């Protein structure tokens, strides 16, 4: 089967800096792919190119066999690419309910689902266990709950590709435990692209791992292959290659 997402020679140049440099990358349907790499490796820039928050300097992106390189971000979302923000950016002044009602009404307008708005939004909240907080102001939620709401918003978009940008950052160990369960659950219905620093989380979730360094792919493989790859160890730990 053809990959869900393919990039060819994908590059983003900021002045003299090549944040993403000629990346050939593909993700199969149904897989959980982790993208890891040292700080400044270009991970967030890379996924921002995929979801359309920024446009590439060169290269192409194909999603489900369709060239989406120049498609505006909101149109990509309608094709099924959802992005959850690294820095939590729920609508703090809106109710928790309204935060998920927005993505739900998007899928309803697109005809990608046919539920009643209220029920569908409550279902998205129940998925992350926030049902009883629906009427709260989102900004009043604890940090961990805001991260869960962020994921619920991504899920409510009924994505085919869900991009999670450092989702466990700032969560407690207990919360991370729940989060791993949640992503496993999500991966049954969607392909997941996960940017993550927390190695135990990556090892627990990823089918395959892509390592970025200096805007390029340094290595790619199963968690075991990556763990034993000397170049990766060098990039992370500075041991001689």
């Amino acid at each position, binding site marked *: 089967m053809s990959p869900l997402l393919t990039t060819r020679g994908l590059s983003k140049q900021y002045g003299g800096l090549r944040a993403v440099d000629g990346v050939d990358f593909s993700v199969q349907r149904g897989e959980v792919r982790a993208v890891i790499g040292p700080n400044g490796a270009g991970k967030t820039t890379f996924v921002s190119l995929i979801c359309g928050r920024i446009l590439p300097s060169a290269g192409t992106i194909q999603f489900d066999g369709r060239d989406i390189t120049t498609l505006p971000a*909101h149109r990509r979302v309608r094709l099924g690419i959802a*992005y959850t923000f690294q820095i939590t950016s729920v609508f703090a*002044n809106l109710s928790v309910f309204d935060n998920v009602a927005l993505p739900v009404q998007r899928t309803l307008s697109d005809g990608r689902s046919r539920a009643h708005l*209220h029920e569908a939004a409550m279902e998205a909240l129940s998925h992350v266990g926030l049902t009883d907080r629906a009427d709260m102001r989102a900004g009043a939620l604890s940090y961990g709950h805001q991260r869960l709401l962020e994921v619920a918003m991504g899920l409510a978009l009924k994505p085919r590709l869900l991009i999670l940008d450092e989702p466990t950052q700032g969560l407690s160990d207990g919360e991370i435990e729940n989060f791993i369960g949640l992503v496993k659950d999500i991966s049954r219905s969607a392909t997941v692209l996960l940017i993550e620093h927390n190695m135990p989380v990556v090892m627990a979730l990823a089918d395959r791992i892509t390592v970025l360094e200096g805007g390029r792919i340094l290595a790619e493989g199963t968690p075991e292959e990556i763990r034993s790859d000397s170049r990766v160890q060098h990039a992370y730990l500075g041991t001689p290659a």
Partner: protein
Amino acid sequence: MAKADGVLAWPLHLAVLAVLLALNFVLPDYHHGIMARILVLAVFASGYNLLFGYAGLLSLGHALFFAAGLYGAGLSMTYLGAGPIGGFASGLIAGAIISLMVGLLALRTSGVAFMIVTMMFAQAAYLTILYFNAWTGGDQGLVLQQAARVIELGGIRIDLTDPETRYLTAWGLFAVTVVLMLVIARSRFGRVLVAIRENEERTRMLGFDAFANKLAATVISGTMAAAAGAAYAILFGYVGSTFASVQYSILPLLWVLLGGGATVLGALLGTVLMYYLVDGSSDVLQAWLPAWKLSHLGVVGVALILLVLFFPKGILGTVRERWARALP
């Protein structure tokens, strides 16, 4: 918006409309005339509120849209022999077209640039009105004759210059506006506008076309302002360039700030209070401190400073925050 909110919103707003209707029969002549004017201006404020309060776009050019309605009605009635209905329709069409054009260009900017661009368009229109003074009457304006302000439909004669008819017409327009605003505020479209105001980037990443939604808000807002302008011309019989000046871009902003942005009734409350504050303070200053020659503008200024210091969200915005979270 949770489900429980819906229960009280409609009765509350319909009750306010009923009170305004009842005022027609009890107000003394002077205040009856003022309230008719305020109801029309509150439609203007409501249109402004849609763009500023809900969508978070601060326009300094709404005088242009008000004037589009005012002159759309006034010119077509003066030169093309249009009746009040034709004049009102011309005003609406002029407002819709002009707000669409301004929106297409101005929405390419945001923040301070948006304020400047909208103000620039409005000033250009103001100067254009003065330039074509042979047609527009310039700053003298045009007076619409009483005979032109009468609707005759199959034997029914509605004289819009009659104070009672005028009040009821203004009330009708305002009632339609309140219903429209309530529907929009509680609709999916309204929710997207608020989301854009709160975080445009996030809204885009939820699959919404921010530009298209902002453009729709601009056109609806501009057309509402034009409806107020057209009604003003028809009901009060005067079309003048003052209404296209920058003052009439600032006023709706002040009314909405005072009443409370993103509240349906805030537009009315702000307009009423500001109108009477200006009116009352002129009298008081003249009666008590005639030698000082103080302007009512000073009083308005002090009121605004107090407002911003103590009620930055306006009166109804504060009420909503403290006591009635569900107020639309």
